[in-house]
């Protein structure tokens, strides 16, 4: 009897303990102590290290604010972010890209930053345009970047191929395709298949006088996409670009990069990821402009990523202060370097690039060298563009594995895109 009683009592105590502990943990640390912010972003190790260092500096200056950080690779980041935001408990400060700014603003997830303590005067209005929706400023550029081809100079030299890297040098498509096919003939694929990302298709469109979106509609048709994918297809056949199994893993991050995985000799990406490539690639890397046949190179100066504050944040002021620090503070600029492209604030940019070394210098140099090739930022992407971007990649997956031809694939993308936008 005694044994049974005490077991019952122990059970009751255990239950009470669990309940109590759960409640305590559930409350978080919001009982009037230091404010805790959650700041999330995607990227690789070196961006993470730089960001964490910048955050530490911020915490030093603001001892009453504590910042919890979290990062991951692109796909995983957004999956988690959507789930969190859907649960009503997302981060306070988040990193978004062109595809998602419109989407999240549309769902009233982002706070309007006009009228807050945020200073935007030193940032190029062109860069700010991407975060401007319905007259409000919902996202702030975290940097400025442009497209690049990052390549392994050793491999290209070994294949006897010259790459235009200096200011004033350039190459056209036939030179480019010849070059990467030559490299592919003697080793790994010349370049990572660039047909997977709608971003590079956008560059292609601008080179042909079109655009990805026009107003709230598509700025291209199935023929354009088919032409693009036919080019990549023929390159794939000649080993100019990577095989399907390598391409399918791509998501723009260095964690899943085919170049870093030594399956290709070059890769198209934004120069904001150059620091990441340099730190994870086992070997030397250099950057070259994208090929183009005409005057319009399709390269544009734009925010690689933006910061946004959550509308549901209970610490909007603190989050805005962190955002202001990251974008406008000289110390932050120095620490962050070029891990998100060159700083968006003009003054900081001059400062950072003036004294940059190593990977940061590589980015600054590239930006300087390619200055004449770079045009103003492309227009903002409308709501629904995130789904279109995903669908684009998914369909290309089917194309590279031979399950659907470029023509039908292009038709499907256009069809689904029109559904998304309506």
């Amino acid at each position, binding site marked *: 009897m005694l044994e049974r009683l005490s077991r019952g009592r122990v059970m009751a105590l255990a239950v009470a303990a669990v309940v109590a502990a759960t409640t305590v943990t559930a409350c978080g640390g919001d009982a009037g102590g230091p404010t805790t912010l959650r700041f999330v972003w995607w990227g690789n190790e070196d961006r993470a290290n730089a960001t964490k260092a910048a955050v530490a500096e911020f915490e030093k200056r603001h001892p009453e604010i504590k910042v919890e950080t979290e990062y991951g690779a692109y796909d995983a980041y957004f999956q988690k972010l959507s789930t969190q935001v859907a*649960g009503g408990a997302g981060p306070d400060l988040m990193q978004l890209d062109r595809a998602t700014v419109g989407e999240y603003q549309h769902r009233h997830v982002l706070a309007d930053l006009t009228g807050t303590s945020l200073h935007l005067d030193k940032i190029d209005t062109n860069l700010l345009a991407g975060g401007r929706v319905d007259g409000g400023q919902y996202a702030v550029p975290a940097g400025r970047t442009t497209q690049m081809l990052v390549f392994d100079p050793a491999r290209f030299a070994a294949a006897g191929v010259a790459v235009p890297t200096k200011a004033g040098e350039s190459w056209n498509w036939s030179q480019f395709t010849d070059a990467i096919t030559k490299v592919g003939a003697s080793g790994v694929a010349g370049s990572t298949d660039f047909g997977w990302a709608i971003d590079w298709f956008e560059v292609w469109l601008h080179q042909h006088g079109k655009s990805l979106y026009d107003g709230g509609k598509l700025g291209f048709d199935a023929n354009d996409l088919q032409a693009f994918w036919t080019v990549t297809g023929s390159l794939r056949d000649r080993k100019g670009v990577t095989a399907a199994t390598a391409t399918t893993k791509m998501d723009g991050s260095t964690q899943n990069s085919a170049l870093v995985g030594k399956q290709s000799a070059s890769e198209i990406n934004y120069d904001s990821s150059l620091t990441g490539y340099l730190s994870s690639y086992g070997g030397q890397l250099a950057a070259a402009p994208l090929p183009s046949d005409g005057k319009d190179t399709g390269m544009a100066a734009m925010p690689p990523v933006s910061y946004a504050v959550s509308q549901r944040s209970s610490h909007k002021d603190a989050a805005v202060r962190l955002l202001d620090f990251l974008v406008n503070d000289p110390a932050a600029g120095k620490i962050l370097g070029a891990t998100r492209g060159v700083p968006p604030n003009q003054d900081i940019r001059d400062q950072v690039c003036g004294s940059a070394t190593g990977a940061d210098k590589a980015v600054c140099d590239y930006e300087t060298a390619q200055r004449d090739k770079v045009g103003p930022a492309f227009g903002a992407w409308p709501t629904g563009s995130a789904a279109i971007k995903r669908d684009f990649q998914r369909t290309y997956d089917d194309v590279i594995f031979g399950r659907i031809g470029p023509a039908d694939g292009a038709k499907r993308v256009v069809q689904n895109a029109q559904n998304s936008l309506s």
Partner: protein
Amino acid sequence: MTRTGVWHVFVVLVLLVLLYPVIWLVSTSFKPAQEVLSGLALLPKAPTGDNYAQVLAGVGGFSVWHYLGNSLLVSVGAVAGNVISCSLAAYAFARLHFRGRGPMFGFMMGTIMLPQHVVLIPQYVIFQKLGLVDTFWPLVLPKFLATDAFFVFLMVQFIRGLPRELDEAATLDGCGPVGTFRHVVLPLLRPALVTTAIFTFIWTWNDFFSQVIYLNDPSRFTLPLALQIFVDQTTQSAFGPMFAMSVLALVPIGLFFLAFQRLLVEGAATSGLKG
């Protein structure tokens, strides 16, 4: 060699093939980076604890012990919930007469086969409206409401096997249903309670889906979730640390298994549970 000897050898061989993934996991976790990618060799040539050191240094801002603690909290909470609520419900279904018993029992049996996803979204919405997303409540509270019909069924079957004479003796002594439950059924129910506790612990530990959906803040992540962030942050080919963390994430279940394997297997056999 005798037939028995041959049999033993054969079984052990099959077992080794079957358990190869686990063996490989553990041994790779002790391999330095170069070895991980190179050979097919099973055992590390130069075993190192570096991978574990890297993981133990912390993931996503917290230590492995922190995540372990979260997992334990959730699993133990679930165990307490299931053991209490399922035994209560099972007693009612098995021994007590009441209006609607038949249909209710049938309904309960039906919920065993119900796909979780049909109730997932409204449950999520309920918890969201209550502001309980990103806490442990959604993972633990349902267990206190006997939502794991499986264990109710398990205990019902068990109680049905208990001789009614004991109940009758208790009634003659003046015990009502509550007393009979406390003094007669509950003590005899212990094997089923233990089985319930063990399986609840393990299944809750591994319930990745619910954890992914309800837990957002890294400070509340369970071990499997932390493992997932770790994976997201490292390059796909860096197995060493990833496997070290995987091993750590499995150790508690492994220990549980080793301690209770006999009971686990008996429980699985007699109640027809799935793994």
